[in-house]
């Protein structure tokens, strides 16, 4: 009897999670949605944030080290897109404000397997933003990578 109650609690918990949106809903068709759509969802407060390390000459170099440690496996060596994640040199990313990229790093895109990087202290996330912005666009590979998804 108690086992049934516990199984029931577990079932309700997982149903609740599904309802909260931890898994994609039926109406959502991730294949049709651009992989960069999440960038447009950044709240204005974040979009307008200025990179406090924008003038730090070491920020991009430190961001590169962080990128190699945390991001390269998914986004590829040159950030041009990997097996699991899109190019960060696409026009959509490179034209996004630093605050928008910071918001994506902080919140992740958990439905699309992008982890939350809030465990990195804020200055390290801004260093990553500096590095990503320093790369510049790479149109061809960026759109190719996005099309694949």
């Amino acid at each position, binding site marked *: 009897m108690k086992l049934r109650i*516990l199984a029931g609690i577990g079932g309700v*918990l997982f149903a609740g999670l599904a309802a909260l949106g931890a898994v994609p809903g039926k109406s959502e068709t991730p294949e049709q949605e651009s992989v960069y759509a999440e960038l447009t969802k950044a709240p204005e407060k974040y979009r307008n944030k200025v990179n406090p390390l924008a003038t730090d000459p070491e920020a991009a170099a430190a961001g590169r080290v962080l990128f190699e440690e945390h991001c390269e496996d998914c986004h590829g060596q040159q950030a041009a897109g990997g097996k699991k994640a899109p190019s960060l040199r696409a026009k959509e990313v490179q034209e996004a404000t630093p605050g928008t990229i910071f918001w994506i790093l902080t919140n992740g*895109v958990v439905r699309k397997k992008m982890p939350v990087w809030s465990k990195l*202290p804020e*200055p390290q996330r801004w260093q990553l933003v500096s590095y990503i912005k320093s790369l510049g666009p790479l149109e061809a590979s960026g759109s190719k990578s996005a099309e694949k998804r």
Partner: protein
Amino acid sequence: MRPWRGFPLFPVVALAFFSLIAGKPAIAQENPYFVAYDHNLEEPSNLEVEYFSTFGTQRSGPNFHGFWSEFEYGATAWWTTELYLDGQTTFGDSTVFTGFRWENRVRPLKNEHWINPVLYMEFEDINGADKILKEVEGHDVESDFLTPNAEARRERNREVELKLILSSNYKGWNFTENTLAVKNLSNEPWEFGYALGASRPLALKGAARKCNLCLQHFIVGVEMYGGLGDRYSFGLHNTSHYLAPALAWNLPSGWTFRIEPSFGLNDQSHQFLLRWGASYEIAGFGRKVADLFRGKQE
């Protein structure tokens, strides 16, 4: 010669071997907690192999060494699943395998908030000789550990453990509060416990070059944990509590080392526990396994 004598060495050797043959490592950026959990989950497809030890002092009885291995896998960005294998050595008594635990942590909210909840569910099938002290619950007290292994291992505990993890990151600090409720599936009442933690890296900015000893890789913290009685006698009476400063060292090679001395805060607690652990994180493990079955090459 008992066949389990060499068991504590096995996970360490296996971990070292695993790191040599495994693919690309991932720097883990782990907080130093041993008991408390924060809201940071394993990155999707990453596998973290971990070995931990708890050395405990025991009044009126022999000291002990509890040890466990963890295999922590990021199933998705919002769900981490983990398998534990536990064992212990009681000095002057014996070394025994004490059981397994299967743990799941789920992040219900999509975005980062001021307070981030994580739901934790664990099933454990362990015997009464388990001494890893991964959590303290109910009326767990030092004298419970006096029973000789041969007798204690005859007691079988099948338990479900639920935790609500509330964790925040603020200006480089992590603050976490865990409340736990445990139900033995036999006719035992619900038991309760808590764990609190705070931690911070020694440097918030990353260095412009790869380095093992950069301050950003060292995270210091403190945790406090203990029991809160059970359904019939909720509160602090006849419970044990600990305060533990902790340190984690996250190396760029994918290794993390942790150490934590714990001090008992009342007469029902062990006076001193020393915990340490080593872990190695493999990036994209799940994807590599999937590719293996699909016959793909990198």
